[in-house]
């Protein structure tokens, strides 16, 4: 069963007199529990597609169906709540809140939903991501890799149905990268989570169930 479905998705930007086609008629179906890797060159539209899937950006045309529901029909707040409950997002540049410590950053989406965080689960994530000692550190006190792990922990903490990750291992050494992906996979299997991940690293992409390649806003390979 498809959890995510993209139909003829287009995102055009106007840059002066030129129209930039970031996404140009993308069609994509992602099954529940599937681990999908998106690869492509810089500027191929990978991040734009991921942002569209997460409802962070508005398409020029086309449809994005999550569980059969067209998310472009949702209001901004409905979309936010939907994202909070259904999606865990890992940004390439982490997007941690600088004035909150690691723990506060991680539990924020859960608390925003009015729910008390499952502290045992959080502790386990922190242990797996080797962040036990950094629980109360401020983002400015963490290295790039540690910040990326906090961002990943934040995405996993609310046990979302879909994890959208933009280069989640970009700043990690190969050992930690393996651990992180392992955790994502285990978590994905345990909670039947769907994972969509952007990566440059072919080795990492190979761990996915399916790989799609984007070029000039179009899926060149793996779309079916």
């Amino acid at each position, binding site marked *: 069963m498809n959890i995510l479905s993209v139909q003829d998705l287009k995102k055009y930007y106007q840059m002066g007199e030129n129209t930039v086609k970031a996404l140009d008629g993308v069609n994509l179906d992602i099954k529940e529990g599937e681990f999908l890797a998106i690869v492509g060159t810089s500027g191929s539209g990978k991040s734009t597609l991921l*942002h569209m899937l*997460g409802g*962070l*950006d*508005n398409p020029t045309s086309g449809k994005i169906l999550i569980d059969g529901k067209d998310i472009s029909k949702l209001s*901004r*707040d409905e979309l*936010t*709540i939907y*994202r*909070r*409950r259904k999606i865990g*997002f890992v*940004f390439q*540049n982490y*997007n*941690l*809140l*600088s*004035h*909150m*410590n690691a*723990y*506060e950053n991680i*539990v*924020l*989406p*859960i*608390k*925003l*939903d009015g729910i008390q*965080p499952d502290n045992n689960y959080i502790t386990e994530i922190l242990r797996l991501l080797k962040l036990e000692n950094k629980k*109360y*550190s*401020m983002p*400015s*006190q963490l290295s790039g890799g540690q910040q990326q792990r906090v961002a990943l922990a*934040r995405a996993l903490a*609310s046990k979302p149905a879909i994890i959208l990750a933009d280069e989640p291992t970009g700043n990690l050494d190969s050992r930690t990268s393996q651990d992180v992906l392992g955790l994502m996979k285990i978590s994905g299997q345990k909670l039947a989570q769907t994972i969509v991940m952007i990566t440059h690293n072919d080795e990492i992409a190979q761990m996915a169930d399916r790989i799609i390649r984007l070029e000039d806003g179009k899926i060149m390979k793996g779309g079916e």
Partner: protein
Amino acid sequence: MLKVNNSKVIKDLAKTTYTANKKRNLLTIAAIFFTTFLICTVISIGSSYWDTVALRQKRMQGMDYDIALTEPRDDQVSAIREMDKVKYAGLSVKCAVLSKYEDRELDKIRLFWLDNVCWENQTIPALDYYSGEYPQKENEVMLSKSALNAMGIKDPEIGMELPLIYQTLEESSNNKEIAKTFILSGWFLDYSGADKGFVSEDFYRTTGVHQTDLTQGELKISLTNPLYSESDITEMQNQIELSGNQIIEADYDTISNFCKTIIGLLALLFLVFLSGYLFIYNTLYISINKDIRYYGQLKTIGTTSVQIRKIIYKQMFWNTVIGIPLGLIGSSIVGKVVIPQVLHALNPSIAVSDIKAVSIWVFAAAALFSFATTIFSSQKPAKIAMNCSPIEALRYIGAPSSNVGEKVRNGGDIRSMVKTNLFRDKKQFFVIMCSLSLAISLFLVINVVIYANNATNILNHSYDYDLRILNQTLLSDNEKQAISPDLIKTIKDTKGVKEVRVLESTTAVVPYQENVYGEYYKELYQSRYSPGDYDKDIELYKKQPDYYSFTCRIIGIDDLEFERLNQTLEKPLDKDAFENGDTAFASSIFIKKGNGIVGKKVMFSIPGDSPQNEEASVEIGALLNNDPAYYSAGYTPDLIISDEYFEKLVKQPLIEMIKIDYEEAFSESTESSIMNLIKDNPLVSTDSKLSRYSEMKNSENQITILGGSIGLIVMLLAISNYLNMMSGSIQNRSKEFAVLESIGMTRRQLKKMVVSESLCYAFLSIVIAIIIGIPAGYFVFKNLNIYGIPFEFPLINNLILFLVIIVVCATSTLLILRKTKDESIIEILRRNDM
């Protein structure tokens, strides 16, 4: 090292940065505009306000002079006029009183003769206006508006005949009534509230009064330097040889009062400048972190610190070049066009050109101050960016807090986020708080100043009634009950009347009692008011106790008046004892100290009225500084007893006056209803707070407009301070809000968080402003309170400001947030990453 010519690059870079930060620069320009506008407008309107208050003060005195020499001799007048320190010395002699106009009894309208100096240089400047000419002929008279009102003349005409009865104040005249038809040569309005008139020199000569007669003649002296000390006065005294009862009436606190006023005004000015400074500083400080990161970026590509500083200065220069002229233009428009037009509309006699021009120095000071503040405040991010490495600058997220270690917090809910957000940069929080609270404090203080100079407050303090109706027949040969019990009842039942206090009075004979008044009379005969020779007079007193000089008035007061008088005492009297006639108040008009009177039992009798002319007695329980009655008798202190006791002693008690208080002070409808009741009663006169207020209307309108404008401008400053702070803060945090939204914070939650934050700022700054503003207001009030009115916090105005601030904080935050809603999250994130 070779000098590299890169000024064009720097200029271009500054230009690019400037246009990229359009919104932020708008806020900075707004802050510069408001600060320049505030300083310029508050100082220029403030000085007009102050001039008007000073002019009103002059008009309330009815004459403009500094000191006065009583009973001056001609040689003294010449000597004083020769002195370098003396600007003007004008002669004023009180020579007669008007007691009746047609069949209407008058409240002793005093007639003065003024010499030319006194009229031209000292009286005219203290008048609201005058019509006609100073009397030249023997039968001419010029009267005050209030005197004409008392005579029932609403539309006076120059040359109209006034059949009047007057008494001269010549010592041997025995108050002989003289009928004469005067010709009205003019009239005038001052704010003294006194019924008075001016007469010609020819008339003055006919009265037989001399300028050297006790309490009649005075030489009013205006000094070249109105700030005089006691030694200046002593020096003057030494040069003119004072004789007999002569004194120089002077206020030796002039210098200290002046210093107090100056300190009060300086404190106010300091607050104005400080709040202007903090407004600009705060606006620039809000975006400091973003600036530092940006300069860090520039540093990474090789821009030097000097170049960065140049970039900053160039941008700030452009901001000041826009903001300062706008502020000056705004201030000119308000000060030279808007306010003069409003004043002119309210009072056409004020020409638009009459309004004092704003001094060029005020403009220069405001412009320089705003410029210096902007340049100084913009140095901070440059300094921080210069003191750290490019990478440190790139990652700059705020001043390191005192606790640089890990923060063991388990927050994440909106409440704890609000708390964290408020205090995340303590220095910034401090700067915002200082700026906001100071702007409100300034408003509180200015309100107190306006309160202290408000005519209604001044009159409420100086009048203990709204309307007084006085029986004019008392002390005449034909004493009558001019205020009947029926009239009192009707007045009490009149709509808008709160209470009516009734005072009865009669003259009493007090036989010489050494143990009671011995010391008092000794002191009186040593004082300036000494009636003559002590030994001779006391001998006469012992032989002839009913001799008029030694009589007193006995005043019977009701419960309401008793309560009112009793509460002014440190040791109030027992009500029952007072009602029973066991104790009484004594008035202390001629005596400063108690002289052992309090606690003594005094014997007295009411001539021809006491049952069998028996002597009565009462114990003096306390001394009153203010005699509640109008009429006086001899030198013996008046006795104030309860009406019950009074009515026991006096067979046919006569009401001297009633004092009426309205539900709503200054109520015109209540006053006109009462005036209607007595309009055909020629035996009474009235004195009303409202009519005094109405006379002051012209200057009061001006004071209200000017004071109100200052208040409004400061209020706008306080509000725009919040607006600037909130929009700056939201602009700076747009990425943070986008991140929060991307991880699941709804717009609703976001609004809740930001509105809570701004409300916290509002509440905290209001609390701090109350803590700073009330003592500061009290300090300024104490220094500027020339009328001695009691301190009161102007609650309503301040509550309005507080409410407006709270509403503005909440709504403006929502409006500013709304503007960002059309952008997608990713657009905002991307824009901020650039």
